[in-house]
């Protein structure tokens, strides 16, 4: 006997993500899903961003990692509320994990929530969490061919931050090719060239953030 099913496999996650989104809208909270490879500079970007805007914007962070509380400790030291999610092996965050983490944050007293996803260039792009914007960070050391090899995250993201531009003189990454490859997959991508080490270019990222809320 044949049974017709015709169902999106990720339907359950998408339902929870929509519920999260309703909560975010009720609380007038702008939520960013920050994605990128391990070592791209996600936590460094957060540290810089918190230092720059925490006096103007009430900001909270959810940290996703396979294990350890290292990143949450780095964020806590910066003086903003943070919740650590340990996925225990899972390579991405999903709607349900975020839902549970929300209980540990005072959402009424936040304007901006940044969710740092598990370091991974593939899986986080597939799982919605109810975010307003997907922001991807890639470092120049990863190479200019990454958009061609991992198109989904580039396609899904609203913003691409190219980090570690201070290293360009020492490596073979062609940043123009990296931008061209990224825009070939998603012409709507807003691209900012930054260095979390020197602070170069970060003002444009803060301006973008400021324009969102």
């Amino acid at each position, binding site marked *: *006997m*044949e*049974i*017709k*099913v*015709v*169902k*999106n*496999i*990720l*339907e*359950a*996650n998408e339902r929870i993500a929509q519920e999260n989104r309703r909560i975010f809208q009720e609380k007038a909270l702008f939520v960013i899903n920050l994605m990128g490879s391990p070592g791209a500079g996600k936590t460094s970007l957060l540290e810089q961003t918190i230092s720059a805007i925490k006096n103007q914007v009430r900001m909270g962070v959810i940290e996703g990692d396979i294990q350890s509380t290292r990143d949450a400790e780095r964020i806590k030291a910066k003086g903003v509320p943070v919740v650590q999610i340990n996925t225990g092996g*899972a*390579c*991405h965050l*999903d709607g349900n994990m975020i839902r549970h983490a929300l209980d540990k944050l005072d959402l009424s007293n936040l304007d901006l929530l940044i969710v740092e996803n598990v370091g*991974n260039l*593939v*899986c986080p792009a*597939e*799982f919605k969490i109810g975010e307003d914007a997907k922001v991807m960070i890639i470092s120049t050391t990863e190479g200019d061919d990454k958009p*061609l090899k*991992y*198109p*989904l995250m580039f*396609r899904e993201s609203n913003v691409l931050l190219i980090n570690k531009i201070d290293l360009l003189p020492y490596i073979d990454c062609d940043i123009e090719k990296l931008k061209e490859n990224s*825009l*070939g*997959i*998603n*012409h709507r991508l807003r691209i900012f060239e930054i260095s979390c080490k020197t602070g170069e270019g970060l003002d444009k990222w803060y301006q973008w953030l400021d324009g969102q809320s």
Partner: protein
Amino acid sequence: MHELSITQNIIEIVQDQIDIHAISKVISIRLKVGELAMIEPSSLIFCFDILTNGTPMEGARLEIEHVPIRGRCVDCGDFLVGSVFICPECGGRDVEVISGSELAIIDMEVE
């Protein structure tokens, strides 16, 4: 790498059908998987075989239909294949994905 979570989602959906229709054995499940989803079929099958041990899904065959990425240029209407979304006809970059992002269960064969 996300094949484990995807497999868990497949199993939940199939289990719902098993409960609704009081099914004793699932023979095969037909899936549509788009190229953009970056799923490794052998990994999906590996996870499925392990997770369905001792359930009515044990031994069921996963028939995975691979859907290539196809886009349509919003400016000139031309079709293109692959993940570089630049229209070969007019150079337009506003390309809508018309297939290749599928991740769906189509149907299943049961006893």
